[in-house]
Each structure stands twice: as C-alpha cells, then as structure tokens.
C-alpha cells in the first residue's frame, strides 16, 4: 500500500476507535456521583417546603433538574424490595416532607430519627412532598 493511503487508513481507524469507546462510555455511564458536584442550592427542609407552600409552580420551575442540598432532621428511612432506599426529612409540615431516594446502598446507622442530616440530590418534582433522586449523604 502507498504510504499516504496507509496513514489515512490509520487515522480513520483511530477516529473510529475513539468513536466506539465514546459510545460505549455514554451507553454504560452510571448516575452522576453528586458527592463530587457542587449543589445549585443549599437550603433547610423547612424553608424549602415553605417555598412550595407559597407558590408550587414557581418553586417547581426554580428547582427542576437542579442539584439541591437539603438540611433537616430525619423522619424515617425505608428500604424497598429491590434495595432502593429512601430517607424522609421532617419539614415542620406534617403533610409535606422531603423524600430523598438513594440509588446506591446506604448505611442505616447514619440516619437515626431526628438526627440533623445534610443530603444532596437532584430535584425531580413535587407530588405531595418534595422528591429528590440520586441522593448522596453529605453529613
């Protein structure tokens, strides 16, 4: 083969390889590790609930897809059949709490009832409570 053709083929091969690796990475990437990402908001569970009580639509728009770090006392911890774990924080409003869903296993010892906790998660929406997903425990 002529030299320029060889070089061209090698370049194409390398580009293709990078492409395949890139695609595989995208395809197999897990959820973002939020312990390594700075939160967009840091707020207490009580203040967060007050914003939704005041104007649900505005608060939903403000927090949608953002990373929120919430500080509040633990209400309870729940482990599902499929190991999905959620920690609920008190807000001073019995009807509206903050529910944090953890995608990786967590240590129940760290979540005693009434213990002040700091949890960072992605805001997913508001049903009767504020729902955070992909949560990590900060403190």
């Amino acid at each position, binding site marked *: 083969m002529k030299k320029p053709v060889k070089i061209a083929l090698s370049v194409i091969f390398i580009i293709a390889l990078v492409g395949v690796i890139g695609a595989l990475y995208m395809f197999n*990437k897990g959820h973002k590790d939020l312990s390594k990402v700075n939160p967009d908001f840091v707020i207490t569970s009580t203040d967060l609930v007050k914003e939704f009580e005041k104007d649900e639509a505005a608060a939903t728009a403000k927090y949608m897809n953002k990373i929120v770090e919430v500080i509040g006392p633990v209400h309870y911890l729940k482990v599902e059949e499929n190991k999905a774990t959620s920690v609920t924080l008190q807000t001073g409003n019995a009807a509206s709490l903050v529910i944090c869903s953890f995608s990786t296993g967590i240590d129940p010892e760290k979540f005693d009832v009434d213990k002040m906790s700091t949890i960072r998660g992605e805001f997913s*929406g508001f049903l009767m409570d504020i729902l955070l997903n992909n949560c990590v425990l900060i403190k």
Partner: protein
Amino acid sequence: MKRILLLLAISFFFIEAGAQKYMTKTGYIGFYSHTPIEDIKADNNQVAGILDISTGEIVFQVLIKSFHFEKTLMEEHFNENYMESDKFPKSTFSGKILNLSSVDFTKNGKYDVTVEGDLNMHNVTKKTTAKGVIEVITGGINATSRFNIAPEEFKITIPGIVRENIARSLEVTVKMNYLPLEKQ
C-alpha cells in the same frame, strides 16, 4: 339527651370519615418491555396514592423523573425524548373500584377487584380499566395490579430506528402499601 346523642353521632361521623382514607407516598409502579432485541425495565418507588374505602375512589400521582432504569442513557432518552418530562412532569390516575361491595375492609384477606378511571400521561387522558387484588391486612391495605399500555395511545413517539427495541405493549405493575391517613 337528644343533644348528647346528636353530638355523639357527629363525632362518630368525623372519626369514621377520617378512617376511610388510606394513603402512601412510597408506592411502586414499574413497567417492562420485552422484545427479541432487548428487555427494558423501569422502577418508580415514589408513587403517591390515596384510597377511599367508603367510596372506592382510588388516585395515583407519579413523577416521570422518578422512573429509574439500569442504564442512565436510557433514563435520559425516556425523559427527554419520549415522555418530555420537563413539559409533562407527572402522570396521574383517577378512578374507582367498580365492585367495591365485594370487598370486606373489616376482614383480612385478598379480594379481586376491577378498577376503572382516567389515566393521564404525556398530556393525553385515556379511560383505562384494570384488574387487581386488594389485600386487607391488620393496620393497612395492599393493592396490586398488572395491566398493559401502548405508548402510541399516549402520543409517545418512538423513532423508527429503535421502534423494534421497545414492545408495542408495555406491562405495567402496581404495588401499593396503604396506611390509614392519620397514621402517616
């Protein structure tokens, strides 16, 4: 005497009225798609629901973003391309147990039920009927159901390239563990 009886009757009514509603905020809804190319499964453990045992009314609220897939990329496509969850963040079902009288909520046991109501998803509302089982247990009520839905019925467009990767009919599984409203 009459007054006391009236007061008793009213207070009894209030106690009873409160005792009719059951609720959960951590209900489960999952869906499953099977094709020769691949199987796709998504789980949502943040379903909010209320069951009124006196009227048979049953309501569900689901956040689309709370459906979790094994592959993050799939979850992103699901939210951004198919469900457009930034535009339509919730899905709701509002319906009634049709054969309410065949369920004895005072007796522990399993009862077959048929539920009919409006299922709203992706801004499309469709009348949906499903069979399920209500299980009365001490201190609570469990409800399970399995039914099928077709994405096209909710104007969810799946591009031609991946159309064969997703089943025409998705199997939906519901598992709710309700507690009395005052015990939340």
